[in-house]
């Protein structure tokens, strides 16, 4: 076995990765080769010095600096503010829906839908109306189902439900399929 044959063993030795039989092979050569013997003690010391060297710690603002230099995506204004636009639109619809309920301005909904709604919401609508009267001091003289044409009633409820969902998910991100920025 000559010096070239043990190069890989030598390198593994310096990383303390030699298996016992490999170590025996290497020692066999080194014991007979003055040059390898001499070099090995130096190389061990140098590699040990390298392995002990202190790492270079980055500055505290390193991450901030990286982010400062990240490329900004080329987006249109609408795309950039889509989150805000969605929430604002949701607020408008939810606000409009609440205002319509508050002032009792829904009109002529399909009778069967009214009865279904009333059946499943129990006294919710009446309670909401009573609460509104107490808080606002306004007495509702109109039936709450007045003003908007019946054909828009379905659309109104879908938009109202959707808007409420958007607002809740924006405020509480754990809701499934939350609106993400």
């Amino acid at each position, binding site marked *: 076995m000559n010096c070239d044959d043990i*190069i*890989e063993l*030598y*390198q593994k030795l*310096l*990383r303390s990765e030699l298996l016992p039989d490999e170590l025996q092979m290497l020692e066999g050569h080194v014991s007979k080769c*003055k*040059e390898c013997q*001499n*070099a090995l*003690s*130096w*190389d061990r*010391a*140098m*590699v040990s*010095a*390298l*392995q*002990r*060297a202190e*790492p*270079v*710690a*980055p*500055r505290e603002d*390193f*991450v901030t*600096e*990286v*982010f400062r*230099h*990240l*490329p900004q995506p080329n987006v249109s204004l609408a795309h950039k503010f889509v989150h805000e636009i969605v929430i604002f639109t949701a607020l408008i619809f939810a606000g409009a829906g609440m205002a319509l309920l508050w002032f009792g301005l829904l009109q002529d909904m399909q009778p069967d839908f009214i009865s279904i709604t009333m059946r499943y919401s129990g006294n919710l609508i009446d309670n909401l109306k009573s609460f509104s009267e107490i808080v606002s001091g306004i007495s509702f003289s109109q039936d709450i189902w007045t003003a908007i044409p019946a054909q828009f009633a379905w659309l109104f409820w879908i938009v109202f439900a959707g808007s409420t969902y958007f607002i809740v998910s924006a405020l509480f991100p754990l809701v499934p399929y939350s609106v993400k920025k």
Partner: protein
Amino acid sequence: MALDRIEENELIARVQNGDVTAFAHLVKCYSEQVLTLVSRIVGSRGDAEDIAQEVFIKVYKGIPKFRGDATFSTWLYTIVKNSCYSYLQKKRPQMISLDEDADVLNSISVLYPEEIPETIETRMDFQNTVMECLKKLPPKYNMVMHLFYYQQFRYTEIAEILQIPLSTVKTHLHRALKALRIEVVKNLENYATKGAE
């Protein structure tokens, strides 16, 4: 801050989905390792910070296309290597072209002093000498020494990072050690001579 393979893959997937918090975490995990290697290759701390930042910006831009064929660290260190070499190409082109001729290196048969200076001088002096001499080596030797002995990468990973054959990695390591030995002995002899004066 070491990440295991599963944690790393999850983090990368989140970054690819646009999660900037995940990217910040990735930067924090690897910034010290990257900065350490870069500063030891290029020498200047200030320039090393700029290059390290540039590395992570390239990671951010390239990560959507990262498919996981290689490990993230080999991909990252390939970017580190390319960034260091680009910098050295501009600032110190003579270092890139410098190459210890194999024949010259092989023909040097030196009998090194038997007593390792570590037993004579303080450990810190010897360590500083070794680190300074490493910087004087051709960048490919300096890089391979750090990747193998300091970062503990395997031969195959280093071959992937440096985009060289496996056998060349072993040859570079062998020559790097020999060149470093010669440089360290020369340095310490100069130090001893100056000390005697």
